């Protein structure tokens, strides 16, 4: 009986919504831009996966934490061909900040959340840069922070869409 109840609970609390949101975020982060637009615009691509991660940590801190963040980061490493553990490392830090601030973040207005998102995404971008730099793969570029800025600008919309989905599908 207990097992049945547990299975029913897992089914009812909408794990698939969380998984689907991460998959869609990953799609957005690799989908190729059309040839017609200049390649520099690729730098403006927001960090979709970090945004989705922050949302779920704020909304469901008892389910999504550091371990999930690390696993998602690892998958992203494979997807992007970066060093194994690079995004994992960055996401641990994001998850740590978000899960220690979630009670405060919930009380914030959306624009205040955006500021925190900017700082957090910026930090994860810095970690990515440090790793790549130590491995001799890239040089410092202000574009890293531009991406964090765009992510912060998009945060209100990501927040609203995910909150809507969470309520409709009753993800708890």
């Amino acid at each position, binding site marked *: 009986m207990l097992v049945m109840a547990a299975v029913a609970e897992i089914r009812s609390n909408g794990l698939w919504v969380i998984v689907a949101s991460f998959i869609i975020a990953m799609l957005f982060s690799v989908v190729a831009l059309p040839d017609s637009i200049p390649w520099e615009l690729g730098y403006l691509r927001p960090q979709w996966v970090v945004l989705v991660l922050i949302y779920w940590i704020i909304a469901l801190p008892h389910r999504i934490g*550091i371990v999930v963040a690390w696993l998602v980061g690892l998958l992203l490493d494979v997807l992007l061909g970066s*060093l194994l553990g690079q995004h994992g*490392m960055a996401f641990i830090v994001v998850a740590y900040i978000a899960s220690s601030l979630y009670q405060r973040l919930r009380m914030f207005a959306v624009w205040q959340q955006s500021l925190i998102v900017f700082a957090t995404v910026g930090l994860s971008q810095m970690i990515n840069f440090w790793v790549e730099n130590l491995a001799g793969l890239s040089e410092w570029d202000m574009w890293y922070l531009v991406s964090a800025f765009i992510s912060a600008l998009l945060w209100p919309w990501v927040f609203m869409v995910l909150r809507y989905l969470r309520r409709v599908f009753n993800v708890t």
Partner: protein
Amino acid sequence: MLGLSILSIGLMVVDHLSNILDDARAGLSVLVTPVVVIADYPNKTAEVFREVFSSREEMQTRIIDLDQELLLLKVKTQEMAALRAENNRLRDLLGSAAKIQDNVLVGELIGVDPDPKRHEVVIDKGLNHNVFVGQPVLDAQGLMGQVIEVSLFTSRVLLISDESHSVPVQVVRSNLRLIARGTGVSHQLELRHLQNTADIRPGDFLVSSGLGDRFPIGYPVGTVNKVEHDPGKPFATATATPSAQLNRTRHVLLVFNEEKLDTIDAGDGSSG
């Protein structure tokens, strides 16, 4: 948290310094392959739409053009067969090894690295088609790059325009050997350590020199477009335009050298 951090750092160090994690990465890649495939759909659909909505006349002119091109290429192939036979006979006379005819496999590009600084693409052939790390990749016009990572169904190709990539080349006119380095800009290669007296000028055609045992000899790499002699510097600088259409090709050719295939089939026991 600390444990996972240390684990991540460990993984990164191991991944950077050795290739023992490649299998794990290939395994995980299979998990994310659907994401790569689905992410390619917008492009693929756009292509289909273009074909569906092009008019009958456009299609007819295209078919006529293609027919003419095919005819031209067939004529060239005939010449080529005769030339190849002659070349091999001459090489025989000189006592050097005959040039091996390369086999190719056509792959389709299904993903582009979202980081504009990294010139890497993902193609739809992997271990299931015997693709191997280090395999040269061409497009219809010239050398594109090499395979750097293989998973079961996909593989990752580093383009010659990436900043971390260099390819040994040779000037066709003067047989001068050089290294062409990627610049991070997809329409430019940089020729390094060029002597001020080197016999090179704009318009010179560069082919792969076969040195370094990575790329087969004689495939087009690019055309020199600028040579600058600065009297104050020990080396002249030159840039070249890649022959391959690095940022717009959708179909690529993976080159199988027959020798390489034999060694793979025979396993590690035989020496090359």
